[in-house]
């Protein structure tokens, strides 16, 4: 297992993809946090996002901006698996690490660690960008920012493992990215449109909304995202085991 992780770590950091993805994540976070901070400064945020005193925590702005920035991290995580198929390296990779389960776990571990670290950095960057724009309406406390940043990192780690497992199950980058986009962004608001309680509950259990709830402090929503990640890993593991490479 140690060897498989070391190999995946080396592979991740030895193509340019990783740097493009990380740069894109930072750019999206800065742009998103700036925009949400301006909304907040104009008093355009939904009331449930405000603190009891009516002000906005800088970390909350970072959480909101994660809705956009997450896709750079998801794309990176998904490519860790699907680029094996698009670049034709999967046979070599499986010849190095023939245990499908070990390979998938190694990739998931590497992706989760990177996403966690990136998420924490993004959370801090978002808060730092938001603080001056929020002005009087904002609250910046070191402890709260660290808490929000850790929550963002935790969510990105889980959703990245989900993307890795889904990539193994679907094999292609396009199919994988479209599926994630549907589950995270497109389907939830469609389900919530009629405002039926049952449909709202289904929407809330999809990985995107559950992740948002988790980042806003709902620990059980984190378990929902984790369940999606585990389900994707199991699906990916079964495909890796059964289908010819």
């Amino acid at each position, binding site marked *: 297992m*140690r060897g498989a992780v070391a190999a995946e770590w080396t592979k991740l950091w030895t193509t*340019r993809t990783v740097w493009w993805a990380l740069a894109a994540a930072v750019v999206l976070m800065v742009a998103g946090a700036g925009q949400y901070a301006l909304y907040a400064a104009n008093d355009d945020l939904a009331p449930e996002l405000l603190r009891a005193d009516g002000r906005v925590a800088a970390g909350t702005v970072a959480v909101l901006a994660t809705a956009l920035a997450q896709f750079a991290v998801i794309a990176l995580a998904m490519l860790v698996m699907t680029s094996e198929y698009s670049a034709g*390296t999967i*046979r070599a990779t499986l*010849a190095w690490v*023939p245990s499908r389960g070990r390979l998938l776990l190694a990739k998931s571990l590497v992706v989760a660690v990177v996403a966690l670290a990136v998420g924490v950095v993004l959370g801090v960057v978002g808060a730092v960008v938001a603080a001056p724009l929020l002005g009087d309406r904002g609250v910046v406390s070191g402890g709260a920012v660290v808490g929000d940043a850790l929550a963002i990192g935790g969510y990105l780690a889980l959703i990245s493992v989900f993307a890795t497992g889904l990539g193994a199950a679907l094999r292609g980058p396009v199919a994988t990215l479209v599926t994630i986009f549907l589950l995270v962004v497109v389907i939830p608001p469609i389900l919530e449109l009629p405002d039926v309680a049952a449909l709202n509950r289904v929407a809330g259990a999809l990985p995107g909304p559950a992740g948002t709830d988790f980042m806003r402090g709902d620990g059980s929503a984190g378990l929902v995202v984790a369940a999606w990640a585990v389900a994707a890993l199991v699906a990916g593991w079964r495909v890796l085991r*059964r289908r*010819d490479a």
Partner: protein
Amino acid sequence: MQCEPGPYDRQVAWLSIGDCAGAGRCIPSLRMITLEGLTKRFGAVAAVDGLDLRVEPGRVTGFLGPNGAGKSTTMRMVLGLDRPTAGSALVNGRSYRSFRRPLREVGALLDAKAAHPGRTGRNHLLAMARSNGIPAARVDEVLGMVGLGGAGGKRVGTYSLGMGQRLGIAGALLGDPAVLLFDEPVNGLDPDGVRWVRQLMRGLAAEGRTVLVSSHLMSEMQLTADQVVVIGRGRLILDAPVASVVDRGSVTVRCPDPGGLDALRAALAARAVRVEAVGDDGLAVAGLSVEEVGDVAHRLGVRLHELSRQRGSLEDAYLSLTADSVEFGA
């Protein structure tokens, strides 16, 4: 067959010697590729159909067959990439998927596209080494061995086809394995490269390793391989020493008298495997030696203008063997 332990094989050498001395041959599992009833179906088509084969150490085994004969599918099953529909493919008596550090047991060159184009050759090998706990120093060693010492820092996407092959061969050698598989290793190599691959294969076999090489180039296989395995439509057609295949040459006789030619032909047909007319005045005789043909002519008192031995080539033997099993013939 006798089994000489190779210098690389410190751990199992004592076992091989013991077994070889006792039974006159190695126990079947060591340093060997063993296929038993290996079958792979894609829908109704059997790409590999009940293949039984033992690829033995200490020699180069050439793996031949027309396009679509099942060579690559067989190699993929040996590496655990494709699941057999039936039967088994074992390396050193174990299935590939059961190895924790497979690169130390089996080295393989499957296709030149095995490395990500955006990664440098050196980093590709470095990741590969780390996956199997192989020291990083070995990476530069194998890069030097394949003549890529100066190109290790370049991205694989910039490599020529020949450089890609060399990188793949470096990967196969990385874990210093006792069993090696090469699928079309000379593709894209220049004449120097072809000769280098030939010497490398010969050298690896001389060290006691098991070397399985697939190729389309018969003349090259005739120079490289000790044993030749021919498959067609997924089935085994031939598994024999190259020397015995090539020595199935023929004897050419030419006789200026039509009557004498007919008499000679009748007499030879009774004894030879095959007698065919060559031009107006000649015969090609398979299955008899020059001496035997000369003696027959002498007994009949037939005048000869030529009596010569034609050495067979692996290519001729191959083409006659696979004539019935060419999948994509013209």
